[in-house]
Structures are given as C-alpha cells and as structure tokens.
C-alpha cells in the first residue's frame, strides 16, 4: 500500500551535497504540486561540518515537518551521531547508508528504529563509476530515491537538467548518467519498500519559499520602499532578498553599521513618508529598545521583523526559540505602546507582514513581527492564490487639518493627522520628549497623562479591528491548547492524531500578541475544559503575559521548555496525554 505522505532525511558533511539534494527534491515536489516542508540543520563548523536535511512531501495539506522520518540516507555515520535526537527514524524506517563506511553497524545505535530496513548502498562507488567523481554522489542518491519512493523521475530529472544545464559541456551528461545509475541500482535492492512509495496525482506547481522570504515579499507587496538592516542569523535572508528586489521595485536599502542605526534609519524613512522596515533577531531587538520607545513617543509607523532564535545573549544563534515575547511586549523604558504580531507559518509570514504595515500606518505605532527560526528558515510550499492581502496606505492630513495643523491633535481614536515633509502647511518639529498637540516639548504632568492616554488609546482600535487568531479543531473540547508561532504546525499535526484517537482537543493560536484578542480568547477559554499552554521558552512568556490581561481559568496547565529544538508532534501528544492523566505544571526535557 503506497503512501500519500513521506518524510526523508539525509545526513552528511560539507562535500556531500545533502542540502542541494534536498533542494532539488523539494523543487521537484513543488513542481508536481505536492506539499513540501524542508528543514536544514548544521553542526558548529562554519563550513564543511555535518549537515542534515529533512524533507516532508505529501499529497495532502501538512503543517509541520513531522518528527519521525520514513527514509533516512546516511553518507557517514559519524555525522549522523551529531544529530542524535534531532533526526529520528520511525520504527520501520528505510535506512540507506554508505556501504563503505567503516563504522560497524552494531555501533550505530538508533533506539527508535526497532524494525527498520537497513540497506547498504555504495554511494561513492556508484558515483565514481558512473560520473568519474564522487561529487555526484547526491545525484546518484536522487536517482535511487526517485525510483524507490515514487517521486516522478520526470520532475527530478528536470531538476538535474536545470542545475547542470548551464555548466560546461559534459557535466550535465555525467550527472544524468549518475542519476540513471542510481535508478538502476534501486532496482537491484531486494527489499520491499513499496509501502513508502508516494502516490499522488500531479497538480499545479506551488511556490517554494521560506518564512523570511515570505516576509520580504510581503514588505514589497505592502508598499515598503525603504529597508535598513544589519545582518543576523536567522533573519539575514530578508536583507539578502531585499538587496536584490527593493531596488528593482524602485525602493532603497541600506545595510547599517548596527541595529540602533537600522531602526533609526527606518524611523527617519517613515517620518519622511516612505513605508519602512528592518529585520533582526533577539540581540538586535534588544539593541533597538531605546529607538522603539522613540517610535512609540513620536508616533512613527515602522515595522520590525524579529526572527527569534535561542537566547538569552548570543544563545543558540541557529536554533529556534519563542523567547523574545517579553522584550517585544515590555521592552523599552517608560510606558511605550507598540503592536506585536506573531505569524504561525510560512504563508502567515506574508499576511502578518502586510498586516504589520497596515496597522503601523493606521496607528502610527511601531509594529514588531515575532517570527521564529523554525518558520523563518524552513522552506515550504505555498499556494500562490493565498498570497493576496489588502494594503492600507498612510492617510495624509486634509486641507482642514492643515489649516490649523496639530501633529499630535487629540482625536477619538488617538490617531492624529501625520503630514509628510514636502507638505507646505504641515511643518512640525517632532521629538522624543513629552510634547503638546503641536509637538512642542511640554513637561507638565497633566499634558503627560493626556498624551499617554492618547498614545495607548490607539491599541483599543487595533484590538477591535484586528482580533487575529486561529481556532483549530472542534468548537468545544476537553483540552484546549494555547500556543503561538511555529508551534502551530506540530500542534495541528498532533491534533489530527489525537482526534483520531478520540481525544477531544482544540487549539487557540493568536496571530496578534499585543493588543491581545481578549474577547475571542475568553470565549475560547470558556469552550474547553482544560486550557493547556505549550511554549518553547523557559518561563512561559505568553502565559505570563496573558495573566496580565485576563484571569485564566483555574486548572490551566502550562508546559514550557527552552528552545533549540522545535516543538515536536510527539511532544505535543505526550503533554496532552499527561494532562489527561496526571497533574504537574512543568516537565523536564530529556533526550
């Protein structure tokens, strides 16, 4: 019985081309209209160290990478051990490993793979024979995988042709030979792996993109024409992408000397009337604390994308965590309102970013988009048709407003007319000091209170207009999961399995963190028997923040752990099961 859903993992080191192979297969899958999620992981070496690539391909919609792999390709057992606990084969997985690896099989301990098919493959030998170089190992492997697991060779071959088509004469031919050799070898394997054969009908091609790319495209879509940023893992791809596409769109980009300058520059750009964005990760967000307060005080719309990684400090730069919520919501001295959004997957990165620009313009507030590495750097297929989103532009002051222009006029919504340099009657001198309606410095406590009230009032409007969240599962349930960001995927996957096992479970995933969709959340909380928070940070930042806003039901359960590993489906299931069986607020991570 073939399958509609297959997860492959490939492990090797520097020269093995594991990631290239993964990319080619992902593209091939997307071309066939499959749903694909691809994730990479690396060791500490800057280059040439161990790397792994995990690829899930499915004929049906999928929302997470999935924890356990059906097919494991190991070029080198030494590299594999570095990913212990991260790459976990299923009990009955198919394991293809380099036949010439000297490590004795009995030394290879994969506790989960109790019933696996272990297939030695002479990858190096096949490649050398067919192409004259072992560098083609990954292309040979592609041939094997395509043949064994039913990824139409048509697409994979096209991928090979595309990759080598422009290289010098002979290269393409050699690689095609390698590909054929792989397919041929596959036929000689005497193990039945047909249960792992993907079965699907080809449909329209999908886009393949990362969360970071989705944010970058969304910025262009939203009308962002100025970007300033400083490189930092795992957000630099936004800078990279925009360095190419922003100028093409007629915009401008500056790589600044640091993050303080980056936020300063986009505050300047937006003050000047151009929609502006920066992107960063935790350390950069921390450096932006003072400037964030300035944007809040001077009421200047800006969008700050924070792709979260493990913290505090330099932490785990290449791994995901959801621990910048406190900084995003509470960071900066003084009472400084801001908006915080949290996309839940690659596609949602697009929507969150456009929403961010829209809300920024509507409220003249800084908007932080809290993505995380697990979304930002994971490559997923997306339906192009889903990437549409209304764009709201800055409202310029009316002639009437300009007649007696007050930049910070008190209004029912707290939002005042913002004029842009070049407007004749709209001159004002803004500042980060407390000021009166005309922007003049004012230090009276009465004015300060009035202006604080004005600035915070803007949040009410957003809470009303943008109650962004996702409700997964049934309307009423025994267990109600609250999670955010990249955790939505594994939660959604786990819920399918739990529901199949008769567990009554739903989930509430906020897409806006500040202001929080309180009304919807309280309704949701009332719809479940036990509320369960799942967070990938140590202290439970969303949970604690929510406690400042609403009274959570007695008996609410909180599971938090530090990041470094994405929330897994198994973990979600385990936690829900433990809620249903025994009490306990925090669980140890063990591995």
């Amino acid at each position, binding site marked *: 019985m073939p399958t509609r859903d297959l997860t492959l993992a490939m492990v090797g080191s520097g020269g093995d081309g594991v990631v290239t192979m993964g990319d080619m297969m992902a593209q091939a899958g997307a071309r066939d209209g499959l749903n694909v999620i691809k994730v990479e992981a690396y060791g500490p070496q800057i280059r040439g160290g161990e790397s792994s690539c995990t690829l899930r391909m499915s004929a049906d919609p999928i929302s997470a990478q999935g924890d356990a792999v059906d097919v494991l390709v190991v070029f080198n057992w030494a590299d594999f051990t570095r990913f212990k606990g991260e790459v976990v084969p299923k009990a009955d997985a198919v394991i293809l490993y380099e036949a010439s690896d000297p490590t004795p099989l009995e030394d290879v301990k994969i506790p989960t793979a109790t019933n696996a098919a272990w297939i030695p493959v002479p990858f190096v030998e096949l490649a050398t024979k067919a192409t004259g170089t072992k560098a083609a190992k990954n292309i040979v492997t592609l041939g094997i995988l395509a043949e064994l697991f039913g990824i139409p060779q048509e697409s994979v071959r096209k991928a090979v042709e595309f990759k080598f088509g422009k290289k010098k004469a002979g290269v393409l031919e050699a690689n095609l030979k390698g590909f054929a050799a792989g397919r041929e070898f596959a036929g000689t394997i005497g193990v039945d792996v047909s249960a792992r054969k993907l079965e699907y009908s080809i449909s329209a091609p999908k886009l393949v993109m990362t969360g970071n790319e989705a944010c970058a495209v969304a910025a262009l879509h939203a009308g962002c024409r100025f970007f300033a940023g400083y490189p930092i893992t795992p957000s630099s791809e936004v800078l990279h992408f925009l360095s190419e596409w922003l100028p*093409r769109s007629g915009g401008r980009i500056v790589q600044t000397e640091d993050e303080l300058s980056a936020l300063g520059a986009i505050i300047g750009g937006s003050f000047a009337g151009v929609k502006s964005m920066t992107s960063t990760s935790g350390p950069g967000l921390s450096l932006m604390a003072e400037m964030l307060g300035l944007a809040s005080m001077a009421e200047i719309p800006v969008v700050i994308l924070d792709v979260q990684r493990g913290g505090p400090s330099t932490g785990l730069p290449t791994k995901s965590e959801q621990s910048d919520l406190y900084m995003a919501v509470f960071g900066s001295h003084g009472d400084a309102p801001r908006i915080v959004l949290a996309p839940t997957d690659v596609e949602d990165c697009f929507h969150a970013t456009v929403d961010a620009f829209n809300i920024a313009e509507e409220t003249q507030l800084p908007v932080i988009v809290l993505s995380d590495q697990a979304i930002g750097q994971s490559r997923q297929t997306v339906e192009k048709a889903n990437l549409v989103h209304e764009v709201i532009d800055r409202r310029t002051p009316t002639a009437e407003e300009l007649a007696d222009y007050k930049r910070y006029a008190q209004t029912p919504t707290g939002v005042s007319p913002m004029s842009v340099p070049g407007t004749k009657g709209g001159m004002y001198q803004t500042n980060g000091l407390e000021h009166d309606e005309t922007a003049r410095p004012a230090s009276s406590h009465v004015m300060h209170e009035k202006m604080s009230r004005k600035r915070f009032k803007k949040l009410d409007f957003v809470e009303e207009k943008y109650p962004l969240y996702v409700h997964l599962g049934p309307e009423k349930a025994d267990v109600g999961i609250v999670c955010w960001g990249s955790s939505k995927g594994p939660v959604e996957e786990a819920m399918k399995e739990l529901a199949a096992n008769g567990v009554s479970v739903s989930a509430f995933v906020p897409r806006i963190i500040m202001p929080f969709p309180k009304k919807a959340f309280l309704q949701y909380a009332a719809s479940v028997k036990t509320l369960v928070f799942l967070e990938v940070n140590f202290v439970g930042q969303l949970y604690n923040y929510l406690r400042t806003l609403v009274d959570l039901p007695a008996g609410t359960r909180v599971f938090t752990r530090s990041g470094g590993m994405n929330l897994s489906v198994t973990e979600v299931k385990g936690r829900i099961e433990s809620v249903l069986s025994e009490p306990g607020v925090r669980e140890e991570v063990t591995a």
Partner: protein
Amino acid sequence: MSSVVETPAPPRFQPGDYKSDLKPVWCAGCGDFGVVSAMYRAMAELQLEPWNTVVVSGIGCSSRLPGYVEAYGFNSVHGRALPIATGIKVARPELNVVAVGGDGDGLAIGGNHFLHASRRNLDVFYVLMDNEIYGLTKGQAAPTTPSGDKTKSTFFGNPEPSVDPCELAISFGATWVARGFSGDMKGLVDLMVAGMSHRGFAFLNVMSPCVTWRGDDQFKVMKAKLRSLPEGYDRSSRAAAFAYTRETETLTTGVLYEAHEPSLLDRLEAQRTKAMEGHEGLTTEKVLKVFFPPF
C-alpha cells in the same frame, strides 16, 4: 545635501522666515544662538523651501536647535541624529537634510554613526556644536574636553585625551570638512552655505562656547585664537588638513578638506536605475515568480 533651490530675485525667504516662534531654552550668551542665526541666513541665501527641509538632531542643548527652525524637524534621541537623517535622505532624496548636535551627542554616544555616515558619503550637512562639554546634563567631560580639565565628572581632571572632530571626519571619509566659530557670523554663514551646497557628506565643526559650564571666558579665549587658512591653501589634500587639526594655540576656521566623489545617493541611484531596467511596473505577482520551481 543635493537639491538646493535656485535663487530667484527678489528673495522669497528672509532669514527671519526660518525662525520658529518657540523660545530657545539656551542660556543667555550661549554660542548656539550664533549657530542658529547663521543657519537662518544660510537657508535664506540658498532660498531653501522650509517644507522641503528637515533639520534633525539628537539630545543636548545644541540638539534643541531643530525646534527653533521653521522647517520640518526631528529632535530624536541622544546620539542618533545621523541614523535618522540617513533614513530621511535615502528615503526622500529630494529633501534638504541638515543634521545638528553637540560634541557629546556626535562624538561620544553617536561616534559610530558619524564614522559611517561619513564613510558612506551620505548627502547630508552635519553641524556639530562643539562646546567641549556636556551642556544639557550640567557639565561633564566630552570627547573634546581638553585633557586635565576639571569637570563635574572628572573631579581630578579629565584623564582622557581629546579628539579633533575635523581630523576624524577626514579619516572617516567625509568629503567636505570645515571648522567655524559661533562668534564669527559672516564666516559661519559662508561655511554653512558651502556645506549645504556640497554633494556628499559635509561636516562643519562649530566652536560654540558654553558660558554656563565652560565659563564666560570661553568665548574670549576662542576669539583670541581665531585664524584663517592661509592663501592658496590646498583643500584637496588630506595631509594639508592635518596641519590644522589638534590645534591648541590657534583656532583655524575655514574649509579644511574638500573632495569630489560620488555621494551615497549617486551610487544608490545608479544601482537603482540599473536594477529597475526590465522590471518596470514590478508587481507582487511578478516577484513571486522566482519562487516557482524554475524547471
């Protein structure tokens, strides 16, 4: 600064037209009065349209200046005038952007932005009001406070050597570097007109006495040291300029250095023009094409 309006006759704007009706908080006798007056005159000489002009600053006594100029203004946070000016100018190249601030603002907390704005040859005119002290916070040592001076924060005398802002600007890569004195109105106006007309990063260090924390004497002492650059001075030579930096006995005003190199906006514009070729009317739809499998 690049886009300067051509002078029509008779002038539409008088210096007084650039004066806002906010009363300066400065102490009587503060050098910054001279600086803002010179700015009104220079703006009038260039007939800058107030609404197409933005004056940006950080925090300090001197950084209050934008409030006193009838134009768009941004009195931002300490040390960050130049990042904000960068954003304004790059996003809207047609605006006239002037950045101003103090020696603490520009050389202590903001020193890195000064370096990088200079290096980029950003099209902004930057005026540093150098009073050799932190005025607003009541008299602590600044990076230009002479070594040994007793200030509020250096009870036993300033243990640190000072820097020469003009020398820094030159090695940072600024393409127009000048020194002025707030007590020399005519000279200052000329320098400002030249600085505002320069294409690329123009830096003007104005010695602007702080009567409150450097003593009433500072003005007289500076005035006595005042010198001009010699006839035939070669302002295109960095080496020549260094003969007039780190002065102690003299205070030489004038344009120490000038070079003609593409400005940041020149370079960005060239790239942008090239980038847009073949991508006219780019839509999200078209951008998204790159994410489809290319085969």
